[in-house]
């Protein structure tokens, strides 16, 4: 078939060495994909085990200390090893140069180095798990994290190392987007996923060094007893929270912004209609990146920061709703009067719209001072960030994965099983986490090992949901792996998309394009292109 060249990036060179020493952004993207999927599996197993323990009050299957370790590991693995690198480093690496008509990212060796740093960080994290897993929660709050007898130092060291991986990806993407766009592709002719990656890279570069220095301070606090977070020695534990959230709040936008970029691609492609409000969506990505640095204090409303600071942070937090709302309304307007085809990636995009909107609006509840005093540290918070992170980012990631799967492997997956899987995931997700909104509003505290009998039905409901969710992922793993071997050959452009990665073959050749691609239309000119076709 002409669409699948005999020689492409997957088979041009063979053997494990050709993979471990590759400088090809597509292969590095695949290496990242394998790695983050392994992390996702591990974090997911911890999640299912946590839910299993919470099926009934009291001890079920594990000790309280084990439970503390499990929820910490679930959080730390999912955040630092899965969700932060998921879209930028795996999908972004693969797609970004293709989308802008480049042969590679600006610094291919740095790209490979970032993967190796990720692997080293992951190994240090694994070591900390086997050497007596951390039990502090993924936020490593002092003073407990300076006192806990568990392996805090290796885990925070892992976070420190992983930060460099993230920084290098960010530096690379910024240089790539600035300098390697194909002739004619001006900033406002870039696909919106590229805008999303650009805004993400800015946050990665500006915020990640701060978590680096924070974890370093925590390590020094534990090893050299510098007392910087210890009130008995003139230090301040709340300072740790300031530092931690100065990174970790922008970090949630590192997680969501590239996901929003994917959603822009999916909604326009599967509505076969020009994206509504291109510039508004592009600028709102930068707007979110900007506001993200000004809201960290909303994590500390009850941690003893001044009331004035709390009021200002609360007010600024509401601003996040504006660019996010702009995006959601533009996506909905794009679908309006489009000719929508409901293929699997679009199902994920629609799930995202539904779930992210719930997650975003409940974020406004939590940003409201008086409401937060009641909801702080309850399951409401847990449900909120799972709606944003899993209902948002993970749905977008899965949508993107299905969207670009044919491009990555040159194979199509089974559409019927894919739809069964997305339905299971959507239903399972809502059962698992909507119940947690209700529990949280009734006062169920997060991270508790035991609970009052009155919460049992909702906890059980949530646990049953986690099984449906798990089943959905198992189905997905089966049909995706099956497609690699038995899937139909994928055409160049199975979705009739207009962005540049679909001009080249599936899978692409080593240098991406036979010759430098020419920009003949803007990324979402569906009306124009369809009119020319007819």
């Amino acid at each position, binding site marked *: 078939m002409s669409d699948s060249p005999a020689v492409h990036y997957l088979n041009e060179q063979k053997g494990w060495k050709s993979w471990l020493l590759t400088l090809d952004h597509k292969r590095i993207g695949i290496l990242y994909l394998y790695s983050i999927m392994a992390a996702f599996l591990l974090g997911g197993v911890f999640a299912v085990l946590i839910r299993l323990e919470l099926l009934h009050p009291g001890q079920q299957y594990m000790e309280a200390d084990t439970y503390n370790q499990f929820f910490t590991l679930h959080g730390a693995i999912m955040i630092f090893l899965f969700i932060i690198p998921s879209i930028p480093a795996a999908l972004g690496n693969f797609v970004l140069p293709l989308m802008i008509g480049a042969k590679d990212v600006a610094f291919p060796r740095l790209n490979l180095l970032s993967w190796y740093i990720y692997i080293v960080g992951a190994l240090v994290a694994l070591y900390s798990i086997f050497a007596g897993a951390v039990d502090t929660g993924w936020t490593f709050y002092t003073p407990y994290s300076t006192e806990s007898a568990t392996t805090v130092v290796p885990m925070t060291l892992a976070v420190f190392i992983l930060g460099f991986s993230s920084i290098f990806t960010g530096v690379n993407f910024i240089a790539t987007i*600035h*300098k390697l766009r194909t002739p004619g592709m001006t900033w406002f002719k870039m696909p919106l996923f590229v805008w999303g990656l650009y805004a993400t890279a800015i946050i990665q570069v500006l915020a990640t060094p701060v978590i680096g*220095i924070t974890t370093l301070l925590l390590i020094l606090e534990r090893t050299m007893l*510098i007392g*910087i977070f210890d009130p008995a*020695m003139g230090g*301040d534990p709340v300072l740790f929270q300031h530092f931690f959230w100065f990174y970790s709040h922008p970090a949630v936008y590192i997680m969501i912004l590239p996901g929003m970029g994917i959603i822009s691609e999916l909604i326009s492609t599967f509505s076969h209609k020009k994206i509504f409000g291109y510039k508004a969506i592009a600028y709102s990505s930068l707007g979110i990146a900007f506001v993200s640095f000004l809201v960290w204090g909303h994590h500390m409303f009850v941690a003893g920061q001044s009331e004035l600071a709390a009021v200002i942070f609360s007010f600024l937090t509401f601003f996040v709703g504006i660019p996010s709302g702009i995006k959601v309304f533009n996506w909905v307007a794009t679908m309006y009067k489009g000719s929508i085809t409901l293929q699997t990636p679009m199902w994920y995009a629609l799930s995202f719209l539904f779930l992210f909107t719930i997650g975003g609006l409940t974020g406004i509840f939590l940003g409201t001072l008086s409401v937060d005093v009641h909801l702080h540290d309850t399951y409401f918070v847990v449900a909120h960030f799972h709606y944003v992170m899993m209902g948002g980012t993970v749905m977008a990631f899965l949508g993107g994965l299905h969207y670009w799967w044919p491009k990555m492997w040159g194979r199509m997956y089974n559409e019927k099983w894919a739809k069964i899987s997305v339905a299971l995931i959507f239903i399972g997700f809502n059962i698992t986490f909507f119940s947690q909104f209700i529990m949280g509003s009734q006062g169920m505290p997060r991270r508790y090992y035991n609970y009052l009998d009155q919460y049992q039905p909702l906890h059980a409901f949530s646990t049953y949901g986690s099984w449906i969710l798990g089943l959905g992922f198992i189905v997905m793993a089966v049909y995706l792996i099956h497609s690699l071997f038995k899937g139909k050959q994928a055409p160049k452009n199975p979705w009739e998309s207009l962005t540049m990665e679909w001009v080249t073959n599936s899978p692409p050749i080593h240098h991406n394009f036979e010759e430098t691609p020419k920009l003949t239309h803007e990324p979402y000119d569906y009306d124009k292109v369809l009119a020319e076709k007819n």
Partner: protein
Amino acid sequence: MSSHAEHPKFLEHHFVEPEQQAASAKLGMWVFLLTEILLFGGLFVVYAVYRAWNPDIFHNAHVHLDVMLGAINTVVLITSSLTMALAIRSMQLGRQSETITNLVITLLLAGTFLVIKYFEYSHKIHLGQLPGKFYTFEGIEGTNPHIFFGVYFMMTGLHGIHVLAGMATIIWVLRRTIRGDFSAAYYTPIEMTGLYWHLVDLIWIFLFPLFYLVG
């Protein structure tokens, strides 16, 4: 540039022309330097917070730092920045041996900085002017005088690590210069090393007054 332009050896396959490659490297390096500033930024915040809370300690403790040695080190680093800039200039003019000389002088000055720092550190360790629980010195009034030395050792220590990293990078470009990798047409790695080295210098220029001259 014509489409049949030569493809020089140093030009990587994914760039169209040398200008694009050099501009990418420069942008990437500046962005990386930004991350370095933010890394130190965290510590500057720590400094600001603890100095605001303990102005007396910072005043009483800073007199135990040797202003003379700090001043010498400042001059040493600024001079090394000059020789680094001269190294780039030499290569722009295609003068290889001059570049090598300038890089070697830069390296020696960096080494001098670390040697002086070593004497300062060992004197403090000897007196017990150390961070946190290791603090045993008894000549400073006020509660928790260890805080000053905690911040001092963290900031100058992290800076010292950066000096070491800078020296490693200078050795790397020195080797490549000797090997003849660079010319007036291609000297990007030397220039990038220079950018990094100036940042390391610049951070010290802030550290020196903040610790040695606060009185």
